[in-house]
Protein backbone atom coordinates (compact mmCIF):
# COMPACT_ATOMS: atom_id res chain seq x y z
CA UNK A 1 0.00 0.00 0.00
CA UNK A 2 1.09 3.54 -0.66
CA UNK A 3 0.58 5.74 2.34
CA UNK A 4 1.60 8.96 4.05
CA UNK A 5 4.83 10.57 2.98
CA UNK A 6 5.47 8.08 0.16
CA UNK A 7 2.12 9.05 -1.37
CA UNK A 8 2.94 12.73 -1.08
CA UNK A 9 6.22 12.10 -2.93
CA UNK A 10 4.37 10.29 -5.71
CA UNK A 11 1.80 13.10 -5.97
CA UNK A 12 4.56 15.71 -6.17
CA UNK A 13 6.78 13.92 -8.68
CA UNK A 14 3.84 12.97 -10.90
CA UNK A 15 2.73 16.60 -10.83
CA UNK A 16 6.12 17.81 -12.02
CA UNK A 17 6.24 15.12 -14.68
CA UNK A 18 2.92 16.19 -16.16
CA UNK A 19 4.01 19.81 -16.18
CA UNK A 20 7.29 18.94 -17.92
CA UNK A 21 5.60 16.87 -20.61
CA UNK A 22 3.18 19.54 -21.68
CA UNK A 23 5.43 22.58 -21.39
CA UNK A 24 7.43 21.68 -24.50
CA UNK A 25 4.61 20.54 -26.73
CA UNK A 26 3.93 22.38 -30.02
CA UNK A 27 0.43 23.83 -30.44
CA UNK A 28 -0.20 21.52 -33.40
CA UNK A 29 -0.32 18.58 -31.01
CA UNK A 30 -2.48 20.09 -28.28
CA UNK A 31 -5.68 18.38 -29.34
CA UNK A 32 -4.11 14.93 -29.80
CA UNK A 33 -2.25 15.37 -26.52
CA UNK A 34 -5.39 16.37 -24.65
CA UNK A 35 -7.02 13.34 -26.16
CA UNK A 36 -4.00 11.22 -25.22
CA UNK A 37 -4.05 12.41 -21.63
CA UNK A 38 -7.79 11.76 -21.63
CA UNK A 39 -6.95 8.18 -22.59
CA UNK A 40 -4.31 7.89 -19.85
CA UNK A 41 -6.77 8.70 -17.07
CA UNK A 42 -8.78 5.81 -18.47
CA UNK A 43 -6.61 3.82 -16.01
CA UNK A 44 -9.57 4.52 -13.74
CA UNK A 45 -10.89 1.32 -15.34
CA UNK A 46 -8.48 -0.66 -13.17
CA UNK A 47 -9.83 0.93 -10.00
CA UNK A 48 -13.39 0.35 -11.17
CA UNK A 49 -12.60 -3.33 -11.74
CA UNK A 50 -11.31 -3.63 -8.17
CA UNK A 51 -14.37 -1.79 -6.81
CA UNK A 52 -16.74 -4.13 -8.61
CA UNK A 53 -14.52 -7.15 -7.92
CA UNK A 54 -14.74 -6.74 -4.15
CA UNK A 55 -18.42 -5.72 -4.10
CA UNK A 56 -20.49 -7.85 -1.74
CA UNK A 57 -23.97 -6.32 -1.86
CA UNK A 58 -26.28 -5.82 -4.81
CA UNK A 59 -26.10 -2.04 -4.44
CA UNK A 60 -22.31 -2.15 -4.58
CA UNK A 61 -22.45 -4.43 -7.60
CA UNK A 62 -24.76 -2.07 -9.48
CA UNK A 63 -22.62 1.00 -8.76
CA UNK A 64 -19.44 -0.94 -9.47
CA UNK A 65 -20.87 -2.15 -12.76
CA UNK A 66 -21.55 1.45 -13.78
CA UNK A 67 -17.98 2.35 -12.76
CA UNK A 68 -16.47 -0.35 -14.99
CA UNK A 69 -18.83 0.56 -17.83
CA UNK A 70 -17.78 4.21 -17.69
CA UNK A 71 -14.10 3.45 -17.13
CA UNK A 72 -13.98 1.10 -20.11
CA UNK A 73 -15.67 3.78 -22.22
CA UNK A 74 -13.04 6.30 -21.18
CA UNK A 75 -10.11 3.99 -21.90
CA UNK A 76 -11.30 2.50 -25.19
CA UNK A 77 -12.83 5.71 -26.59
CA UNK A 78 -9.81 7.74 -25.60
CA UNK A 79 -7.51 5.29 -27.35
CA UNK A 80 -9.51 5.03 -30.55
CA UNK A 81 -9.86 8.77 -31.18
CA UNK A 82 -6.25 9.56 -30.23
CA UNK A 83 -4.93 6.85 -32.50
CA UNK A 84 -7.13 8.04 -35.38
CA UNK A 85 -5.86 11.61 -35.03
CA UNK A 86 -2.18 10.75 -34.71
CA UNK A 87 -2.32 8.33 -37.61
CA UNK A 88 -2.89 11.26 -39.95
CA UNK A 89 0.15 13.31 -38.99
CA UNK A 90 2.88 12.99 -41.56
CA UNK A 91 5.70 15.18 -42.93
CA UNK A 92 5.95 16.32 -46.55
CA UNK A 93 8.19 14.41 -48.95
CA UNK A 94 7.97 10.62 -48.63
CA UNK A 95 4.27 10.75 -47.87
CA UNK A 96 3.28 7.13 -47.98
CA UNK A 97 6.49 5.29 -47.12
CA UNK A 98 7.62 6.51 -43.70
CA UNK A 99 4.54 6.26 -41.45
CA UNK A 100 3.43 2.94 -42.95
CA UNK A 101 6.84 1.36 -42.38
CA UNK A 102 6.74 2.15 -38.68
CA UNK A 103 3.58 0.19 -38.10
CA UNK A 104 5.18 -3.19 -38.55
Amino acid at each position, binding site marked *: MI*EGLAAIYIFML*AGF*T*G*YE*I*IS*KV*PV*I*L*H*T*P*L*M*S*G*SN*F*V*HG*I*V*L*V*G*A*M*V*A*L*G*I*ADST*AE*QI*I*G*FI*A*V*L*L*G*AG*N*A*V*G*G*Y*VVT*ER*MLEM*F*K*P*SGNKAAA*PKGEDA
Partner: protein
Amino acid sequence: METLIQASYLIAAALFILGLKQMSSPVTARRGILWAGAGMVLATLATFLTPEILDSPQSTTNIILIIVAIALGGGYAWVSGKKVAMTDMPQMIAMYNGMGGGAAATIAAVELLKASTEASHDVTGATTIADALGADVAILGILGAVIGTISFSGSIIAWAKLDGRLNRSKLLPAQHLVNAVLAIATAGFAIAIYFSADLNTIITFYVLALILGIFITVPVGGADMPVIISLFNALTGLAVGFEGYVLGNAAMIIAGIVVGSAGSLLTQLMAVAMNRSVANVFFAGVGTTESTAGGDGTEGVMKEIQAQDAGILMSFASQVIIIPGYGMAVAQAQHKIWELTQLLTDKGVTVKFAIHPVAGRMPGHMNVLLAEAGVPYDMIYDMEDVNAEFKTTTVALVIGANDVVNPSAKDDASSPLYGMPILNAYESDNVIVIKRGRGAGFSGVENPLFFADNTKMLFGDGQKAASQLIQSVKEL
Protein backbone atom coordinates in the same frame (compact mmCIF):
# COMPACT_ATOMS: atom_id res chain seq x y z
CA MET B 1 0.96 -12.60 -7.22
CA GLU B 2 0.80 -9.25 -5.49
CA THR B 3 4.34 -8.46 -6.72
CA LEU B 4 3.45 -9.40 -10.28
CA ILE B 5 0.43 -7.07 -10.21
CA GLN B 6 2.42 -4.21 -8.70
CA ALA B 7 5.17 -4.71 -11.29
CA SER B 8 2.59 -4.58 -14.09
CA TYR B 9 1.18 -1.33 -12.70
CA LEU B 10 4.68 0.12 -12.49
CA ILE B 11 5.43 -0.79 -16.11
CA ALA B 12 2.04 0.60 -17.17
CA ALA B 13 2.73 3.92 -15.40
CA ALA B 14 6.13 4.15 -17.10
CA LEU B 15 4.56 3.41 -20.49
CA PHE B 16 1.95 6.15 -19.92
CA ILE B 17 4.61 8.75 -19.14
CA LEU B 18 6.86 7.70 -22.03
CA GLY B 19 3.84 7.54 -24.33
CA LEU B 20 2.71 11.06 -23.41
CA LYS B 21 6.28 12.26 -23.87
CA GLN B 22 6.38 10.81 -27.38
CA MET B 23 3.00 12.34 -28.14
CA SER B 24 4.56 15.77 -27.69
CA SER B 25 6.48 15.51 -30.97
CA PRO B 26 4.77 14.90 -34.33
CA VAL B 27 7.51 12.48 -35.39
CA THR B 28 7.01 10.02 -32.52
CA ALA B 29 3.38 10.79 -31.62
CA ARG B 30 1.93 7.70 -33.26
CA ARG B 31 4.26 5.42 -31.34
CA GLY B 32 3.34 7.24 -28.12
CA ILE B 33 -0.31 6.21 -28.17
CA LEU B 34 0.64 2.61 -29.00
CA TRP B 35 2.91 2.48 -25.94
CA ALA B 36 0.28 3.99 -23.69
CA GLY B 37 -2.24 1.53 -25.12
CA ALA B 38 0.05 -1.40 -24.31
CA GLY B 39 0.34 -0.09 -20.75
CA MET B 40 -3.44 0.00 -20.42
CA VAL B 41 -3.89 -3.56 -21.66
CA LEU B 42 -1.17 -4.80 -19.29
CA ALA B 43 -2.70 -3.04 -16.27
CA THR B 44 -6.20 -4.28 -17.11
CA LEU B 45 -5.12 -7.92 -17.49
CA ALA B 46 -3.05 -7.82 -14.28
CA THR B 47 -6.05 -6.51 -12.35
CA PHE B 48 -7.98 -9.72 -13.03
CA LEU B 49 -5.40 -11.49 -10.83
CA THR B 50 -5.98 -9.21 -7.80
CA PRO B 51 -6.25 -11.51 -4.73
CA GLU B 52 -9.08 -9.45 -3.18
CA ILE B 53 -11.15 -10.00 -6.33
CA LEU B 54 -10.38 -13.72 -6.54
CA ASP B 55 -11.01 -14.26 -2.81
CA SER B 56 -14.24 -12.23 -2.72
CA PRO B 57 -17.27 -14.38 -1.76
CA GLN B 58 -18.99 -13.34 -4.97
CA SER B 59 -15.88 -13.62 -7.15
CA THR B 60 -17.48 -15.54 -10.03
CA THR B 61 -20.46 -13.20 -10.37
CA ASN B 62 -18.27 -10.15 -10.01
CA ILE B 63 -15.74 -11.25 -12.61
CA ILE B 64 -18.53 -12.00 -15.08
CA LEU B 65 -20.02 -8.56 -14.35
CA ILE B 66 -16.60 -6.96 -14.94
CA ILE B 67 -16.22 -8.65 -18.31
CA VAL B 68 -19.76 -7.75 -19.39
CA ALA B 69 -19.28 -4.11 -18.33
CA ILE B 70 -15.96 -3.83 -20.20
CA ALA B 71 -17.52 -5.37 -23.30
CA LEU B 72 -20.51 -3.00 -23.22
CA GLY B 73 -18.67 0.21 -22.29
CA GLY B 74 -15.64 -0.54 -24.43
CA GLY B 75 -17.76 -1.73 -27.34
CA TYR B 76 -19.86 1.42 -27.36
CA ALA B 77 -16.75 3.60 -27.17
CA TRP B 78 -14.97 1.64 -29.89
CA VAL B 79 -17.83 2.01 -32.35
CA SER B 80 -18.52 5.67 -31.57
CA GLY B 81 -14.82 6.53 -31.62
CA LYS B 82 -14.30 4.94 -35.03
CA LYS B 83 -17.37 6.64 -36.45
CA VAL B 84 -16.98 10.20 -35.21
CA ALA B 85 -16.03 12.84 -37.79
CA MET B 86 -12.80 14.76 -37.19
CA THR B 87 -14.78 18.00 -36.85
CA ASP B 88 -16.73 16.49 -33.94
CA MET B 89 -13.63 15.34 -32.11
CA PRO B 90 -13.79 17.94 -29.27
CA GLN B 91 -17.24 16.87 -28.07
CA MET B 92 -16.28 13.21 -28.32
CA ILE B 93 -13.23 13.82 -26.12
CA ALA B 94 -15.56 15.64 -23.70
CA MET B 95 -17.84 12.60 -23.65
CA TYR B 96 -15.07 10.06 -22.94
CA ASN B 97 -13.61 12.40 -20.35
CA GLY B 98 -16.99 12.65 -18.64
CA MET B 99 -17.13 8.86 -18.49
CA GLY B 100 -13.75 8.82 -16.74
CA GLY B 101 -14.96 11.38 -14.21
CA GLY B 102 -18.10 9.33 -13.65
CA ALA B 103 -16.02 6.19 -13.12
CA ALA B 104 -13.90 7.94 -10.46
CA ALA B 105 -17.06 9.22 -8.75
CA THR B 106 -18.70 5.80 -8.75
CA ILE B 107 -15.55 4.14 -7.36
CA ALA B 108 -15.80 6.63 -4.50
CA ALA B 109 -19.49 5.76 -4.14
CA VAL B 110 -18.70 2.06 -3.71
CA GLU B 111 -16.07 2.87 -1.07
CA LEU B 112 -18.39 5.26 0.77
CA LEU B 113 -21.19 2.72 0.64
CA LYS B 114 -18.92 0.03 2.11
CA ALA B 115 -17.71 2.39 4.82
CA SER B 116 -21.28 3.49 5.58
CA THR B 117 -22.43 -0.14 5.96
CA GLU B 118 -19.46 -0.92 8.17
CA ALA B 119 -20.02 2.13 10.37
CA SER B 120 -23.78 1.66 10.73
CA HIS B 121 -23.41 -2.02 11.68
CA ASP B 122 -20.77 -1.11 14.18
CA VAL B 123 -18.65 -4.13 13.27
CA THR B 124 -15.30 -2.52 13.87
CA GLY B 125 -16.34 0.09 16.38
CA ALA B 126 -16.31 2.74 13.66
CA THR B 127 -19.26 5.12 13.71
CA THR B 128 -18.34 7.58 10.94
CA ILE B 129 -16.93 7.39 7.44
CA ALA B 130 -13.74 9.00 8.73
CA ASP B 131 -13.33 6.21 11.34
CA ALA B 132 -14.07 3.45 8.87
CA LEU B 133 -11.74 4.62 6.12
CA GLY B 134 -9.14 6.62 8.02
CA ALA B 135 -8.90 10.40 7.77
CA ASP B 136 -6.57 10.57 4.73
CA VAL B 137 -8.50 8.03 2.65
CA ALA B 138 -11.85 9.60 3.60
CA ILE B 139 -10.76 13.14 2.67
CA LEU B 140 -9.18 12.22 -0.68
CA GLY B 141 -12.01 9.82 -1.49
CA ILE B 142 -14.67 12.48 -0.90
CA LEU B 143 -12.63 15.09 -2.82
CA GLY B 144 -12.31 12.70 -5.74
CA ALA B 145 -16.06 12.10 -5.58
CA VAL B 146 -16.88 15.84 -5.82
CA ILE B 147 -14.40 16.49 -8.61
CA GLY B 148 -15.30 13.37 -10.58
CA THR B 149 -19.03 14.03 -10.36
CA ILE B 150 -18.70 17.66 -11.47
CA SER B 151 -16.44 16.58 -14.32
CA PHE B 152 -18.98 13.92 -15.31
CA SER B 153 -22.10 16.09 -15.51
CA GLY B 154 -20.16 19.12 -16.77
CA SER B 155 -18.55 17.15 -19.60
CA ILE B 156 -21.91 15.78 -20.68
CA ILE B 157 -23.23 19.36 -20.91
CA ALA B 158 -20.10 20.42 -22.83
CA TRP B 159 -20.71 17.54 -25.22
CA ALA B 160 -24.39 18.49 -25.65
CA LYS B 161 -23.52 22.13 -26.31
CA LEU B 162 -20.81 21.42 -28.88
CA ASP B 163 -22.97 18.79 -30.52
CA GLY B 164 -25.72 21.38 -30.97
CA ARG B 165 -28.15 19.57 -28.67
CA LEU B 166 -28.25 22.35 -26.11
CA ASN B 167 -28.23 26.01 -27.01
CA ARG B 168 -29.31 27.63 -23.78
CA SER B 169 -26.78 29.73 -21.97
CA LYS B 170 -29.02 30.41 -19.01
CA LEU B 171 -31.12 28.14 -16.86
CA LEU B 172 -32.16 30.44 -14.06
CA PRO B 173 -32.05 34.13 -13.25
CA ALA B 174 -29.04 35.03 -11.09
CA GLN B 175 -27.35 31.82 -12.19
CA HIS B 176 -24.01 32.73 -10.63
CA LEU B 177 -25.62 33.35 -7.25
CA VAL B 178 -27.45 30.02 -7.45
CA ASN B 179 -24.17 28.31 -8.39
CA ALA B 180 -22.41 29.85 -5.41
CA VAL B 181 -25.13 28.65 -3.02
CA LEU B 182 -25.07 25.23 -4.63
CA ALA B 183 -21.28 25.02 -4.34
CA ILE B 184 -21.46 25.88 -0.64
CA ALA B 185 -24.21 23.31 -0.09
CA THR B 186 -22.16 20.62 -1.88
CA ALA B 187 -19.12 21.44 0.24
CA GLY B 188 -21.30 21.32 3.35
CA PHE B 189 -22.62 17.85 2.53
CA ALA B 190 -19.09 16.68 1.64
CA ILE B 191 -17.96 17.65 5.14
CA ALA B 192 -21.09 16.10 6.65
CA ILE B 193 -20.26 12.74 5.02
CA TYR B 194 -16.88 12.75 6.71
CA PHE B 195 -18.46 13.05 10.15
CA SER B 196 -21.40 10.70 9.63
CA ALA B 197 -22.28 7.40 8.02
CA ASP B 198 -25.74 8.34 6.84
CA LEU B 199 -26.70 6.97 3.43
CA ASN B 200 -29.10 9.84 2.64
CA THR B 201 -26.33 12.38 3.23
CA ILE B 202 -24.18 10.58 0.68
CA ILE B 203 -26.99 10.46 -1.88
CA THR B 204 -27.87 14.14 -1.40
CA PHE B 205 -24.20 15.01 -1.79
CA TYR B 206 -23.97 13.23 -5.15
CA VAL B 207 -27.17 14.82 -6.44
CA LEU B 208 -25.93 18.30 -5.48
CA ALA B 209 -22.53 17.72 -7.14
CA LEU B 210 -24.25 16.50 -10.33
CA ILE B 211 -26.44 19.60 -10.51
CA LEU B 212 -23.46 21.82 -9.73
CA GLY B 213 -21.54 20.40 -12.71
CA ILE B 214 -24.50 21.10 -14.98
CA PHE B 215 -25.07 24.62 -13.67
CA ILE B 216 -21.39 25.58 -13.93
CA THR B 217 -21.16 24.50 -17.57
CA VAL B 218 -24.45 25.73 -19.02
CA PRO B 219 -23.59 29.48 -18.96
CA VAL B 220 -20.18 28.97 -20.63
CA GLY B 221 -20.11 30.36 -24.18
CA GLY B 222 -19.42 28.12 -27.16
CA ALA B 223 -16.10 29.80 -27.93
CA ASP B 224 -14.86 29.06 -24.42
CA MET B 225 -15.77 25.37 -24.53
CA PRO B 226 -12.22 24.12 -25.29
CA VAL B 227 -10.99 25.68 -22.04
CA ILE B 228 -13.77 23.94 -20.14
CA ILE B 229 -13.15 20.56 -21.74
CA SER B 230 -9.46 20.86 -20.98
CA LEU B 231 -10.23 21.84 -17.41
CA PHE B 232 -12.60 18.90 -16.92
CA ASN B 233 -9.89 16.66 -18.41
CA ALA B 234 -7.45 17.88 -15.77
CA LEU B 235 -10.11 17.49 -13.05
CA THR B 236 -10.87 13.91 -14.06
CA GLY B 237 -7.15 13.18 -13.85
CA LEU B 238 -7.07 14.60 -10.35
CA ALA B 239 -10.14 12.60 -9.29
CA VAL B 240 -8.57 9.41 -10.68
CA GLY B 241 -5.36 10.16 -8.76
CA PHE B 242 -7.30 10.66 -5.51
CA GLU B 243 -9.31 7.47 -5.94
CA GLY B 244 -6.01 5.74 -6.72
CA TYR B 245 -4.89 6.72 -3.22
CA VAL B 246 -8.11 5.33 -1.76
CA LEU B 247 -7.49 1.99 -3.48
CA GLY B 248 -3.73 2.06 -2.88
CA ASN B 249 -3.17 1.80 -6.63
CA ALA B 250 0.11 3.39 -7.76
CA ALA B 251 -0.72 3.31 -11.49
CA MET B 252 -3.91 5.31 -10.89
CA ILE B 253 -2.14 7.83 -8.69
CA ILE B 254 0.70 8.45 -11.14
CA ALA B 255 -1.39 8.50 -14.31
CA GLY B 256 -4.12 10.60 -12.69
CA ILE B 257 -1.82 13.23 -11.23
CA VAL B 258 0.30 13.44 -14.40
CA VAL B 259 -2.86 14.16 -16.37
CA GLY B 260 -4.10 16.53 -13.68
CA SER B 261 -1.01 18.72 -13.83
CA ALA B 262 -0.51 18.45 -17.61
CA GLY B 263 -4.17 19.27 -18.14
CA SER B 264 -4.05 22.26 -15.80
CA LEU B 265 -1.12 23.72 -17.70
CA LEU B 266 -2.81 23.06 -21.04
CA THR B 267 -5.97 24.79 -19.78
CA GLN B 268 -3.88 27.78 -18.75
CA LEU B 269 -2.13 27.91 -22.16
CA MET B 270 -5.47 27.84 -23.96
CA ALA B 271 -6.99 30.53 -21.78
CA VAL B 272 -3.96 32.78 -22.34
CA ALA B 273 -4.13 32.21 -26.11
CA MET B 274 -7.76 33.34 -26.03
CA ASN B 275 -6.97 36.26 -23.76
CA ARG B 276 -9.30 34.94 -21.08
CA SER B 277 -8.61 33.97 -17.54
CA VAL B 278 -9.99 30.63 -16.44
CA ALA B 279 -12.17 32.43 -13.88
CA ASN B 280 -13.42 34.74 -16.61
CA VAL B 281 -14.51 31.79 -18.72
CA PHE B 282 -16.78 30.63 -15.93
CA PHE B 283 -18.24 33.92 -14.89
CA ALA B 284 -18.78 35.72 -18.18
CA GLY B 285 -18.94 34.54 -21.76
CA VAL B 286 -18.12 36.54 -24.92
CA GLY B 287 -21.43 37.05 -26.67
CA THR B 288 -23.51 36.35 -23.59
CA THR B 289 -22.54 39.67 -22.07
CA GLU B 290 -24.37 42.30 -24.09
CA SER B 291 -21.69 43.92 -26.22
CA THR B 292 -22.57 47.40 -27.40
CA ALA B 293 -19.12 48.05 -28.86
CA GLY B 294 -19.33 45.41 -31.56
CA GLY B 295 -22.07 46.92 -33.68
CA ASP B 296 -20.93 50.45 -34.33
CA GLY B 297 -17.17 49.98 -34.79
CA THR B 298 -17.39 49.17 -38.48
CA GLU B 299 -17.53 51.64 -41.34
CA GLY B 300 -17.29 51.44 -45.10
CA VAL B 301 -18.31 48.69 -47.47
CA MET B 302 -17.04 45.21 -48.18
CA LYS B 303 -15.39 44.87 -51.59
CA GLU B 304 -16.24 41.70 -53.46
CA ILE B 305 -13.90 39.73 -55.67
CA GLN B 306 -14.74 36.96 -58.14
CA ALA B 307 -13.05 33.58 -57.80
CA GLN B 308 -11.37 33.96 -61.18
CA ASP B 309 -9.62 37.21 -60.23
CA ALA B 310 -8.68 35.78 -56.84
CA GLY B 311 -7.13 32.75 -58.58
CA ILE B 312 -5.05 34.98 -60.86
CA LEU B 313 -3.91 37.09 -57.93
CA MET B 314 -2.71 34.02 -56.05
CA SER B 315 -1.07 32.36 -59.07
CA PHE B 316 1.27 35.31 -59.54
CA ALA B 317 1.97 35.82 -55.85
CA SER B 318 5.37 35.16 -54.35
CA GLN B 319 3.91 33.96 -51.06
CA VAL B 320 0.40 32.95 -50.02
CA ILE B 321 -0.51 32.33 -46.40
CA ILE B 322 -3.72 30.41 -45.84
CA ILE B 323 -5.56 31.07 -42.58
CA PRO B 324 -8.11 28.33 -42.03
CA GLY B 325 -10.85 28.51 -39.43
CA TYR B 326 -13.53 26.19 -38.15
CA GLY B 327 -15.83 27.39 -40.95
CA MET B 328 -13.54 25.70 -43.46
CA ALA B 329 -13.96 22.38 -41.68
CA VAL B 330 -17.73 22.78 -41.43
CA ALA B 331 -17.84 23.32 -45.20
CA GLN B 332 -15.53 20.29 -45.63
CA ALA B 333 -13.28 22.49 -47.78
CA GLN B 334 -9.92 21.29 -46.44
CA HIS B 335 -9.38 18.75 -49.23
CA LYS B 336 -10.04 21.39 -51.89
CA ILE B 337 -7.74 23.82 -50.12
CA TRP B 338 -4.96 21.23 -50.14
CA GLU B 339 -5.53 20.65 -53.86
CA LEU B 340 -5.31 24.40 -54.41
CA THR B 341 -2.10 24.51 -52.37
CA GLN B 342 -0.50 21.84 -54.52
CA LEU B 343 -1.45 23.69 -57.73
CA LEU B 344 0.01 26.95 -56.41
CA THR B 345 3.18 25.21 -55.24
CA ASP B 346 3.62 23.79 -58.75
CA LYS B 347 3.48 27.34 -60.09
CA GLY B 348 6.33 28.32 -57.79
CA VAL B 349 4.25 30.09 -55.16
CA THR B 350 5.35 29.59 -51.55
CA VAL B 351 2.29 28.48 -49.60
CA LYS B 352 2.09 28.32 -45.82
CA PHE B 353 -0.70 27.57 -43.41
CA ALA B 354 -1.01 29.86 -40.42
CA ILE B 355 -2.79 28.43 -37.40
CA HIS B 356 -4.07 30.50 -34.53
CA PRO B 357 -3.80 28.71 -31.18
CA VAL B 358 -7.57 28.52 -30.90
CA ALA B 359 -8.39 27.81 -34.56
CA GLY B 360 -10.98 25.08 -34.71
CA ARG B 361 -12.69 24.14 -31.51
CA MET B 362 -9.55 23.66 -29.46
CA PRO B 363 -5.82 24.22 -29.83
CA GLY B 364 -4.43 21.88 -32.43
CA HIS B 365 -7.86 20.85 -33.73
CA MET B 366 -7.22 22.65 -37.03
CA ASN B 367 -3.94 20.77 -37.45
CA VAL B 368 -5.84 17.52 -37.11
CA LEU B 369 -8.36 18.62 -39.74
CA LEU B 370 -5.60 19.68 -42.15
CA ALA B 371 -3.70 16.47 -41.52
CA GLU B 372 -6.86 14.56 -42.41
CA ALA B 373 -6.86 16.31 -45.79
CA GLY B 374 -3.21 15.34 -46.33
CA VAL B 375 -1.46 18.62 -45.56
CA PRO B 376 2.05 17.78 -44.23
CA TYR B 377 2.71 19.22 -40.80
CA ASP B 378 5.87 21.07 -41.87
CA MET B 379 3.77 23.44 -44.03
CA ILE B 380 1.76 24.45 -40.98
CA TYR B 381 3.01 27.31 -38.84
CA ASP B 382 2.10 28.54 -35.38
CA MET B 383 1.11 32.15 -34.85
CA GLU B 384 4.43 33.25 -33.34
CA ASP B 385 6.44 31.74 -36.19
CA VAL B 386 4.43 33.22 -39.03
CA ASN B 387 3.22 36.61 -37.82
CA ALA B 388 6.35 38.50 -38.90
CA GLU B 389 5.93 37.17 -42.45
CA PHE B 390 2.61 38.80 -43.33
CA LYS B 391 4.40 42.06 -44.25
CA THR B 392 6.15 40.27 -47.12
CA THR B 393 3.14 38.20 -48.15
CA THR B 394 1.27 38.85 -51.39
CA VAL B 395 -2.00 37.19 -50.45
CA ALA B 396 -3.43 36.15 -47.11
CA LEU B 397 -6.32 33.77 -47.81
CA VAL B 398 -8.74 33.66 -44.90
CA ILE B 399 -11.19 30.79 -45.08
CA GLY B 400 -13.80 30.25 -42.41
CA ALA B 401 -11.81 32.23 -39.85
CA ASN B 402 -12.96 35.51 -38.35
CA ASP B 403 -12.13 36.50 -34.79
CA VAL B 404 -8.52 35.28 -35.05
CA VAL B 405 -7.77 37.90 -37.73
CA ASN B 406 -9.82 40.72 -36.19
CA PRO B 407 -7.59 43.80 -35.85
CA SER B 408 -9.93 45.25 -33.19
CA ALA B 409 -8.15 42.91 -30.82
CA LYS B 410 -5.11 45.18 -31.25
CA ASP B 411 -6.46 48.71 -31.52
CA ASP B 412 -10.02 48.90 -30.18
CA ALA B 413 -10.06 48.90 -26.39
CA SER B 414 -13.87 48.68 -26.39
CA SER B 415 -13.90 45.40 -28.32
CA PRO B 416 -14.60 42.22 -26.36
CA LEU B 417 -11.66 40.67 -28.20
CA TYR B 418 -9.27 43.46 -27.15
CA GLY B 419 -5.89 42.06 -26.13
CA MET B 420 -6.30 38.66 -27.79
CA PRO B 421 -3.26 37.81 -29.92
CA ILE B 422 -4.25 37.62 -33.60
CA LEU B 423 -2.75 36.58 -36.91
CA ASN B 424 -1.63 39.83 -38.59
CA ALA B 425 -3.32 39.07 -41.91
CA TYR B 426 -4.14 42.78 -42.35
CA GLU B 427 -0.43 43.48 -42.97
CA SER B 428 -0.40 41.49 -46.23
CA ASP B 429 -0.55 43.23 -49.62
CA ASN B 430 -3.90 41.57 -50.27
CA VAL B 431 -6.36 39.80 -48.04
CA ILE B 432 -8.93 37.49 -49.60
CA VAL B 433 -11.69 36.36 -47.27
CA ILE B 434 -13.84 33.40 -48.22
CA LYS B 435 -17.03 33.77 -46.25
CA ARG B 436 -20.53 32.39 -46.50
CA GLY B 437 -22.36 35.58 -45.64
CA ARG B 438 -21.91 39.04 -44.22
CA GLY B 439 -22.68 38.23 -40.58
CA ALA B 440 -20.43 38.41 -37.55
CA GLY B 441 -18.28 35.53 -36.29
CA PHE B 442 -18.62 32.78 -33.68
CA SER B 443 -18.28 35.31 -30.87
CA GLY B 444 -20.72 37.76 -32.49
CA VAL B 445 -18.12 40.53 -32.86
CA GLU B 446 -17.85 42.61 -36.08
CA ASN B 447 -14.57 42.44 -37.97
CA PRO B 448 -13.10 45.69 -39.44
CA LEU B 449 -10.64 43.62 -41.51
CA PHE B 450 -13.50 42.80 -43.88
CA PHE B 451 -13.92 46.51 -44.62
CA ALA B 452 -10.19 47.32 -45.03
CA ASP B 453 -8.84 48.73 -48.31
CA ASN B 454 -6.63 45.74 -49.06
CA THR B 455 -9.37 43.20 -48.30
CA LYS B 456 -11.53 41.53 -50.94
CA MET B 457 -14.46 39.31 -50.02
CA LEU B 458 -15.15 36.10 -51.90
CA PHE B 459 -18.68 35.22 -50.81
CA GLY B 460 -19.91 31.67 -50.96
CA ASP B 461 -19.75 28.23 -49.45
CA GLY B 462 -16.16 27.34 -48.55
CA GLN B 463 -16.01 24.17 -50.58
CA LYS B 464 -17.56 25.74 -53.67
CA ALA B 465 -15.35 28.82 -53.48
CA ALA B 466 -12.27 26.63 -53.18
CA SER B 467 -13.34 24.60 -56.23
CA GLN B 468 -13.77 27.80 -58.21
CA LEU B 469 -10.29 28.96 -57.16
CA ILE B 470 -8.84 25.63 -58.29
CA GLN B 471 -10.63 26.01 -61.62
CA SER B 472 -9.28 29.52 -62.05
CA VAL B 473 -5.68 28.54 -61.23
CA LYS B 474 -5.86 25.53 -63.57
CA GLU B 475 -7.05 27.66 -66.49
CA LEU B 476 -3.99 29.90 -66.40
